[in-house]
């Protein structure tokens, strides 16, 4: 068993509706922990029933390929400027855009390292797209500024490494292959192999597809 802790590393513009606040831009939430002082400001648009959705992503590049995920714990620090006429106002853990675990309601105070508790039953693929979703919606038509303050979040993954790991050396660096499937060409046909297809005593040289 091993653990990996990572911070937010990117803002998911493609799935989000928020307009970046230039004074408190989205990357402010990448500061490195769930207990940082600086924050990103996510404005709730004016108007009746206007809402805003924001997604942040974690950097999972350090998670070994083929890992079995035992559990994940996400800690965060976030709050909303006012709860008046804002409902729902939630923060949740998502895989892609699917909520995992239970969403929590944002309050006007932000405690360090609030947690969603342990989340289990996630696959490696689901973990690789984990992120944080922030959502807020106005009630009746109001124009009073409302905004979410996102300070940061950390993801801790408890996992077990795959027994079979394969690496290729590329540009002087070893890179672990992600979920490799092996084929060997036999009598002119590519045959799928379980496990390593390499034959002892045979030398292999890298070839490029043409």
């Amino acid at each position, binding site marked *: 068993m091993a653990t990996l802790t990572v911070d937010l590393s990117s803002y998911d513009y493609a799935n989000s509706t928020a307009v970046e606040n230039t004074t408190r831009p989205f990357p402010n939430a990448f500061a490195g922990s769930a207990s940082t002082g600086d924050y990103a400001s996510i404005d709730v648009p004016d108007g009746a029933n206007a809402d805003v959705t924001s997604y942040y992503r974690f950097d999972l590049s350090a998670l070994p390929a083929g890992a079995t995920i035992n559990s994940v714990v996400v800690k965060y620090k976030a709050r909303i400027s006012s709860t008046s006429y804002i409902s729902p106002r939630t923060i949740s853990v998502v895989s892609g855009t699917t909520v995992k675990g239970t969403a929590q309601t944002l309050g006007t105070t932000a405690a360090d390292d609030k947690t969603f508790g342990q989340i289990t039953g996630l696959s490696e693929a689901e973990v690789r797209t984990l992120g944080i979703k922030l959502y807020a919606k106005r009630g009746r038509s109001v124009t009073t500024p409302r905004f979410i303050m996102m300070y940061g979040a950390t993801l801790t993954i408890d996992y077990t490494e795959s027994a079979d790991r*394969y690496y*290729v050396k590329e540009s002087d660096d070893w890179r672990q*292959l*992600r*979920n*490799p*499937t*092996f*084929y*060997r*060409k*036999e*009598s*002119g*046909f*590519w045959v799928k192999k379980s496990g390593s*297809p*390499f*034959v002892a*005593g*045979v*030398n*292999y*040289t*890298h*070839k*490029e*597809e043409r």
Partner: protein
Amino acid sequence: MAANKVVLANGATLIDLTSDTVAAGSLLSGATAHDASGAAITGTLIVNGYYVLSSAPSSSLGVDGDIAIVEG
């Protein structure tokens, strides 16, 4: 009898294999040569290729013995 060096009567060296490093294991399978002792050898080195791909290999790719690794 294998010969690995031939020196002419005038002292000039016609051929000298004594410092050659070729060996059966470093010579491609089926190729022939003479090693440093002058003995004829047949190569035993087998070299195949491997590809790292993002989808299943096409039938025209590679030769028998080659490996394709497809990342999922």
